[in-house]
């Protein structure tokens, strides 16, 4: 395959990403002139100015990673429609994230001037320890995930173009690090939106090419029905047990609202109208992507008809093989989809990890000690940390140590086990307190990691159910034992805290009344 013809669309795409980011970075200059608080708000949440379309696209693009475009459809090739049926549970993501958390997080964030999710945790639970622990967990898990994304993207690039692994890694890896550093959250959000559009476009082109190769939808389906009828069954001849469906509902359906890199988007939108629009647009797009890409996986079984061994023994080779079978220019365009999915996830993870390090740990500690930090230094630290973190992840991706793969394996469920109840109960249960939060984050993360490590699967379910259950028990027990949070803090999150306050005022007035009368 002509590498240049395949490379040209990708190079053009990366150039557009860099350009968009550079143009949008001008907003940081204006914000920086107004002070470091404005810069931080601009750099880490885009000055809360996202519109509905960009909010929807950045939320979907952040969530859709290289596995949504490579690993998932590869599984669909092997399992069939059951895999699409399982992956469609992700249409609840926007409803849960924006519908359940969206407005409450936005209200509280504006009330307390929070720039990161950890700002909210620190304030709600009044705990530096919980905030620092959260920041550390976020940095570790997100960095490992980021490295896995780098590797996945580069391997795909290598498989499709035939160019060396390092060339692909350098091409999109360095670009994403640079444009994230330069553009900050606004750059990441807008480039995410562009990525999401290209993901959809690449998917449509790939589907069209696949249908052409297979002689049309009807021909492929007739072939599958006669040759591989199990692909048309929901349980796929035992390959998709009910326990797997339940596990996936928990892991990628219901608990995704606990992912900090997604939740931070609730702090960044401009108006309630933006949120309402994003809810609808995002659900349309995430459904289209999941159904579309996995349908491509299923249909590719009608084109790539050999055993898995013929494709290198890995389902991860199915989609690259399919793309490589297209004409060079079409392949060049199709590869943009998975690359866009990779870089949009990396950029958001990088910024979330960087904000945890710079703002939630370093700047907070300086502030706590009363040490002054100039506006220029804040700018330098924010961009410098993003750049260094990105470069370190990039370098580690060249030859990732095995421990990275282990951490990555634990990352998704680990973050959910750590933060699900901290977010949910913190925002919707007044009695949630720091003891409960600390117990939940420690108990949930630890139990999940151990269950993963030892392969504990109750009733064949994914270890996430252990993490979530232990985290909940720890949270409830801790909150019962711990000291309740101050009413002034609770007023930021609970309407009923105001009613409690009114009742207290009423009691005081009633007590004070006779005295006043006596004095009179």
């Amino acid at each position, binding site marked *: 395959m002509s590498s240049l013809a395949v490379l040209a669309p990708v190079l053009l795409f990366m150039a557009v990403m860099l350009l968009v980011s550079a143009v949008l970075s001008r907003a940081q200059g204006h914000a920086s002139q107004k002070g470091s608080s404005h810069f931080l708000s601009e750099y880490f949440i885009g000055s809360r100015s996202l519109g509905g379309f960009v909010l929807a696209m950045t939320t979907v693009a952040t969530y859709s990673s290289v596995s949504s475009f490579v690993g998932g459809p590869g599984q669909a090739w092997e399992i069939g429609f059951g895999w699409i049926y399982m992956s*469609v549970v992700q249409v609840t993501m926007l409803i*849960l994230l924006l519908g359940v958390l969206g*407005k409450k997080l936005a209200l509280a964030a504006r009330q307390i001037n929070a720039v990161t999710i950890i700002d909210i945790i620190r304030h709600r639970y009044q705990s530096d320890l919980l*905030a620092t622990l959260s920041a550390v967990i976020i940095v570790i898990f997100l960095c490992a995930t980021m490295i896995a994304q780098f590797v996945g993207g580069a391997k795909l690039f290598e498989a499709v173009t035939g160019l060396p692994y390092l060339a692909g890694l350098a091409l999109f890896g360095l670009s994403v690090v640079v444009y994230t550093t330069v553009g900050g959250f606004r750059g990441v959000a807008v480039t995410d939106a562009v990525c999401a559009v290209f993901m959809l476009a690449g998917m449509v082109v790939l589907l069209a090419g696949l249908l052409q190769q297979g002689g049309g939808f009807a021909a492929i389906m007739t072939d599958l029905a006669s040759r591989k009828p199990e692909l048309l069954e929901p349980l796929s001849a035992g390959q998709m047990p009910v326990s797997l469906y339940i596990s996936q509902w928990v892991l990628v359906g219901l608990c995704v609202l606990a992912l900090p890199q997604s939740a931070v988007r609730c702090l960044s939108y401009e108006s309630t109208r933006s949120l309402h*629009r994003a809810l609808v647009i995002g659900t349309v797009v995430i459904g289209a992507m999941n159904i579309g890409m996995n349908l491509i996986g299923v249909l590719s079984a009608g084109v790539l008809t050999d055993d898995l061994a013929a494709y290198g023994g890995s389902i991860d080779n199915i989609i690259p093989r399919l793309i490589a079978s297209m004409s060079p220019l079409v392949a060049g365009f199709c590869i943009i989809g998975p690359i866009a999915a990779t870089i949009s996830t990396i950029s958001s993870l990088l910024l979330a990890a960087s904000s945890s390090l710079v703002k*939630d740990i370093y700047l907070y500690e300086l502030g706590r000690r*009363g040490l002054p930090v100039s506006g220029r230094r804040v700018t330098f630290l924010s961009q410098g940390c993003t750049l260094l973190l990105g470069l370190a992840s990039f370098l580690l991706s060249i030859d990732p140590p095995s421990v990275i793969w282990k951490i990555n394996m634990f990352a998704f469920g680990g973050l959910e086990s750590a933060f699900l109840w901290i977010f949910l109960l913190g925002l919707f249960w007044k009695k949630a307190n720091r003891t409960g939060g600390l117990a939940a984050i420690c108990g949930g993360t630890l139990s999940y990691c151990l269950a993963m490590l030892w392969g504990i699967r109750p009733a064949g379910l994914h270890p996430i159910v252990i993490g979530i259950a232990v985290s909940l028990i720890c949270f409830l027990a801790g909150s019962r034992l711990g000291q309740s949070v101050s009413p002034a803090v609770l007023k930021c999150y609970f309407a009923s805290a105001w009613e409690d306050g009114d009742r207290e005022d009423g009691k005081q007035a009633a007590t004070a009344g006779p005295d006043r009368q006596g004095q009179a």
Partner: protein
Amino acid sequence: MDYRHKLQQADREARASGLAALAIIVFWTLAGFGASLFDVTLFHVPLWALAGCLGTWLFAIVLCVWLARRVFRNFDWEDEAAGRDPVCREEGTAAVPPAGQPRALPAQGHASGQGEDASMTCPRGGTHE
């Protein structure tokens, strides 16, 4: 709408969203596993796959439109964005003292939050620890 009523509205919307997610789970189960009991094929695709995948997606979109139009309410952020901070003024609960936000200590009379900060200092003891 004041802050307290915005919180009440946000709670209502969260409850409705949770119920919507529950409705999707029920629909998904009936449309997929339920329909798989019937050996029906439409456009070369089994009915359970069409209803369970496309059907669930369309049902979720309808629910989102219903939520956005009928349940969710628009309100502005005026009180919050202006940095008036009417809620978190009690000493020892300083909202987000750190990270470049030079919130004045409660004792100093007001919570600025939006001020200039060529150099920033933060109050000690933002939390109870």
